[in-house]
């Protein structure tokens, strides 16, 4: 085998400046928004916060499932997912401002309202601020602990190549996946479903998870393409890896549609007022077109666009589909949050865009800094050899 040497990834000054500019725009828009329309600003904040936290958690999740399955092919791209996971602690810090907006976001935060609303008064054992904060702290403690452990083992292995770190990560991954399934579902219930606390769906956690995994694979594909173009992954990641990531993306596009439809169909079929409420809000007025756009651009278009083998191996094509999926994931979060703020009319403007840019800047800054600081590939992983010979 020819000697491979790993090039260092350079996070250029210009790119770094651009991410800081985005963060700056985000902060300015956030402050202006709070002065102007605080309620809308909190909704915009929640939307982008949830989006990028999910991408960060998706990074941990991707690394964990590959550890659990002892996957060989993904070793050379795993470090990118680990870089995403570095955003989770930052997301925790970004939760703090949001805690000031809870009264504007969640009606049930108001004790008087919760006590007087019959349906919500029955849910106060779960839906009360104290328990909400306890859950929030617990979730972040779990996520940050496992994200840190998985990342640290992987980074330490770069130095000594100790294979026992791989088996240690296997244990952590199994525990993380169990904890993640429950914590992310409940986190979605807390921050997304309880925006309309009368409504409930037992599939909601799977729905947000489907979006999480679909979008994290799209982000992964974008980073792979970007780093290959930069020449950093030369010899470590090939077209075959991209093919498999695109295949994954395609599979979870179908998974998303399957889950979204299963949730909708059961509610449509049963036709109970407190369940149909959620979809009634989303087929009224302009929201109908947003719902249709989700079906078309989050499922049908990527499904057809990624079906042929040649499409999954074409860099420019996969890049375009990945961008489409990431944009529709924004639309999905928008669709989950905004009908609670504005019935009938779709509102979208500089507040939403500005805050999204702010979070995007923070996310990219964290990920690129991580990649520039560490090896872009887990170079001493015992299964790296397998990844280098990956062939589809």
């Amino acid at each position, binding site marked *: 085998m020819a000697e491979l040497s790993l090039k260092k990834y350079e996070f250029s000054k210009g790119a770094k400046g651009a991410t800081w500019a985005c963060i700056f725009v985000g902060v300015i828009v956030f402050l202006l928004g709070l002065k102007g329309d605080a309620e809308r600003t909190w909704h915009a904040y929640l939307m982008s916060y949830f989006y990028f936290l999910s991408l960060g958690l998706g990074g941990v999740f991707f690394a964990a499932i590959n550890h659990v399955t002892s996957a060989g092919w993904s070793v050379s791209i795993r470090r990118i997912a680990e870089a995403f996971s570095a955003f989770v602690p930052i997301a925790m810090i970004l939760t703090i401002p949001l805690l000031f907006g809870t009264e504007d976001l969640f009606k049930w935060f108001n004790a008087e309202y919760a006590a007087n609303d019959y349906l919500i008064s029955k849910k106060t054992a779960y839906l009360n601020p104290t328990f909400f904060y306890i859950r929030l702290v617990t979730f972040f403690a779990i996520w940050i602990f496992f994200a840190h452990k998985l990342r640290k083992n992987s980074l330490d292995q770069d130095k000594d190549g100790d294979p026992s770190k791989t088996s240690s990560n296997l244990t952590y991954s199994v525990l993380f996946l169990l904890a993640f399934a429950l914590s992310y579902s409940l986190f979605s219930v807390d921050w997304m479903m309880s925006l309309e606390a009368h409504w409930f769906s037992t599939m909601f956690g799977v729905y947000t998870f489907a979006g999480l995994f679909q979008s994290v694979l799209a982000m992964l594909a974008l980073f792979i393409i970007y780093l290959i173009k930069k020449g950093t992954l030369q010899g470590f990641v090939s077209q075959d890896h991209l093919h498999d990531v695109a295949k994954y993306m395609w599979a979870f596009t179908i998974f998303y549609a399957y889950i979204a439809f299963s949730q909708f169909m059961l509610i449509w*079929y049963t036709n109970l007022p407190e369940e149909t409420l959620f979809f009634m809000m989303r087929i009224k007025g302009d929201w109908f077109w947003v719902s249709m756009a989700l079906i078309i651009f989050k499922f049908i278009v990527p499904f057809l666009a990624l079906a042929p083998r040649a499409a999954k191996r074409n860099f420019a094509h996969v890049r375009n589909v990945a961008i489409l999926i990431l944009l529709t994931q924004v639309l999905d979060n928008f669709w989950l949050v905004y009908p609670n703020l504005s019935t009938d009319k779709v509102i979208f403007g500089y507040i939403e865009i500005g805050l999204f840019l702010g979070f995007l800047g923070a996310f990219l800054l964290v990920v690129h800094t991580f990649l520039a600081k560490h090896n872009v590939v887990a170079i001493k992983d015992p299964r790296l050899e397998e990844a280098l010979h990956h*062939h589809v």
Partner: protein
Amino acid sequence: MAKRVSGVAGFWPDEYKLLDAAKKTYAAGYRQFDSLSPFPIHGMDDATGIKRSPIPWVTFFAGLTGASFGVWFTWWTSAVNYRLNVAGKPLGLLEALPGYIPIVFELTILFAALASVGAMFILNGLPKVDPPIIDPDITSHKFCLFIPETEDGYSAEKAENHLKSLGATEIKRVAEF
């Protein structure tokens, strides 16, 4: 069923040598030859110049047929031929579509899967009850390259010399494959 052909078979002791031999045979201008091995070998498709199979297209269009048939059939049975009022659900094609989707989905899968398997059988010339045997060891530890007489400008001597030049450990003429 294609008629049986004769030709020349060369044998190698491992898959790397076979892969290498296949590449060189393709480079030498052979197009009809085939490789036979106990297990699938990565890269062999490219080495022997095998084109992509048309099966994905069969799957896609069979799936599309299944989906269209499913939409029409569920609608026809529940809204046209024998109108059923189920819990006051609407009967119009668009209003009732969510209720039809599970059946549409199942029929898409059914049509696509059966058509794919069927197409695979036809394209492979299956079922073949008594396939001719070049060498029984191909199923356990020998790796074989077979050059058929249908090859352009074929002559048994030429093919034998070619396989010999590639380092085949054993060469034999096969009468009926």
